[in-house]
């Protein structure tokens, strides 16, 4: 039962992560592999505050969201000058630099040893200790994130995002401030990713930099793409499939030493297969075709 709840909690965390990346990559067309960096910074901010300042959960989550939002603005800025593959490389650079800071600033982040002993969260005097409690909290946050995303993509703001994805020059031409929209969507996406990071830190109660590597970023973008970029429910489907599939391998008796590798082979292979036969994913609306190749 605990195991089952654990899987559901993981799915919840990945839904938050991939839905926030979906706003950036799926709706706005800015393919970013820096998402694990926001996830990590969110987790570290909350963990450090909880450990050193003993501040309550809600304060930590708000601070993490704000800080990650600022970081998101920073990552969004290159998208104003470069695009497509070059932008992917720029986000990659942010990802590596963030990992490097988490890993090497030992006096502050604990370096490779990580931060152990993150206390259990208390909300309005209610201490969350069980898996069930965490699941409840995750479900609430997940619904909140999905609701916000839904409101965003159905709003005029969301329509502008989609039009940037489809034709940037045209969007500029009808008088939209494309630069502001791009930076704003990065702030929102990064802030949402921070929520997932905070939940992860509190749930596992120990964090170290290896959870926030480039490979994790590739995993998150795989969820978005396989589920379907540019569709609200795409990341939900993607997260369920990509979290549950590797767990099924456990039941067919795969040795645990190989589990991590097989899990990565699985999503890497799926990524190639989907690019080949269904680039828009299960439910997607967008297949990462740039303007010149589409017609």
């Amino acid at each position: 039962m605990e195991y089952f709840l654990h899987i559901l909690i993981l799915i919840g965390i990945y839904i938050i992560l991939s839905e926030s990346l979906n706003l950036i990559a799926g709706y706005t067309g800015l393919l970013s592999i820096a998402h694990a960096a926001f996830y990590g910074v969110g987790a570290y901010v909350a963990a450090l505050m909880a450990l050193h300042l003993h501040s309550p959960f809600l304060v930590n989550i708000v601070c993490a969201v704000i800080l990650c939002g600022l970081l998101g603005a920073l990552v969004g800025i290159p998208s104003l000058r470069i695009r497509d593959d070059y932008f992917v490389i720029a986000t990659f650079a942010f990802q590596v630099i963030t990992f490097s800071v988490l890993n090497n600033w030992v006096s502050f982040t604990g370096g490779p040893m990580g931060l152990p002993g993150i206390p259990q969260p208390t909300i309005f005097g209610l201490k969350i200790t069980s898996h069930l409690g965490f699941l409840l909290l995750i479900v609430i946050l997940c619904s909140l994130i999905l609701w916000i995303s839904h409101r965003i993509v159905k709003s005029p703001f969301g329509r502008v995002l989609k039009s940037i994805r489809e034709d940037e020059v045209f969007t500029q031409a009808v008088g939209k401030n494309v630069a502001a929209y791009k930076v704003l969507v990065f702030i929102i996406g990064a802030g949402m990713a921070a929520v997932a990071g905070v939940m992860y830190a509190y749930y596992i109660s120990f964090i170290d930099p290896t959870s926030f590597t480039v490979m994790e970023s590739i995993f998150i973008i795989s969820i978005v793409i396989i589920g379907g970029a540019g569709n609200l429910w795409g990341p939900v489907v993607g997260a369920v499939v990509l979290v549950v599939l590797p767990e099924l391998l456990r039941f067919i008796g795969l040795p645990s030493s190989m589990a991590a590798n097989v899990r990565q082979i699985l999503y890497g292979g799926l990524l190639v297969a989907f690019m080949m036969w269904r680039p828009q994913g299960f439910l997607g609306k967008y297949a990462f075709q740039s303007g010149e190749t589409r017609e």
Partner: protein
Amino acid sequence: MIQYIVNSLIAASVWTLLGLGFALVLRAGRFFNFAHGIVFTAGAYFAFLFKAWLGFPLAVSLFIAILCSTALGCLMEFFPYRPLRRKGASPLVLLLASLGTYVVLQNMISMVFGDDTKSIRSGPVKEGLNVFGARITPIQILTILVSIVLVVAVAILLKNTKMGKTMRAVASDFKLANVCGLDSDRVILLGFALGSALAGVAGILFALDVDMTPTMGMNALMMGIVAVIIGGVDSIIGIILGALLLGLAQNLGVWYISSQWQDAIAFAILLVFLLFRPQGFMGKRVVKATV
């Protein structure tokens, strides 16, 4: 001080080979091939396979390893890149497919060989020769010499042979090249073969110097990409200068701060270039945001 410059030269030779191979694939196929990094890793592991597991002599193993990594690069072109291109996939789709390919192959290498460090060096580590007060091992001298020879060879090949001319023609405009009767598929395959051979050699040289792990390719490739971007995709001299600048910045960075910040320094330089001069200092064309 001289030691730092020597270290920069050694690093720069590997990054140049890797970057040049990456640029050949980028120019021929017009996409960022992240799986290029796994060819680098695979080159080293093929050498390990033939030398340590099958007991071939070192020189023979290295030769076969280079052939195998060339074949691996060509295989990737046959699947998934060529079918994707036939479907009119955008560079981003190809990039994502190459990320997937990288992840799959890296984990296969981990599963077959294990995650621990493997070595193809024979005998104890020698102290190295003394050159102007800097220590340099024979392997490191070999690394520098091989990369100079290979880079010059590629430059001559591209500039003076018919094969090189067709490669440049397809790189500059493949539709026009097709109209003129060039088989662009063949030329792209050639780009993959040449680029992958360079990556294989780079991987072997790197492993001879500092051993191998399954994950070394991604980081090394990023250094190659940084060299290409700060130097300019179209210019071999640019890539060499880019690699030298990168090597110097990293090793001088070690002098001032500590060695674990090398990656951060490299990527900070990359970001500065991407923001202010995305075509690199020798490049001409660039894909810029249109706004």
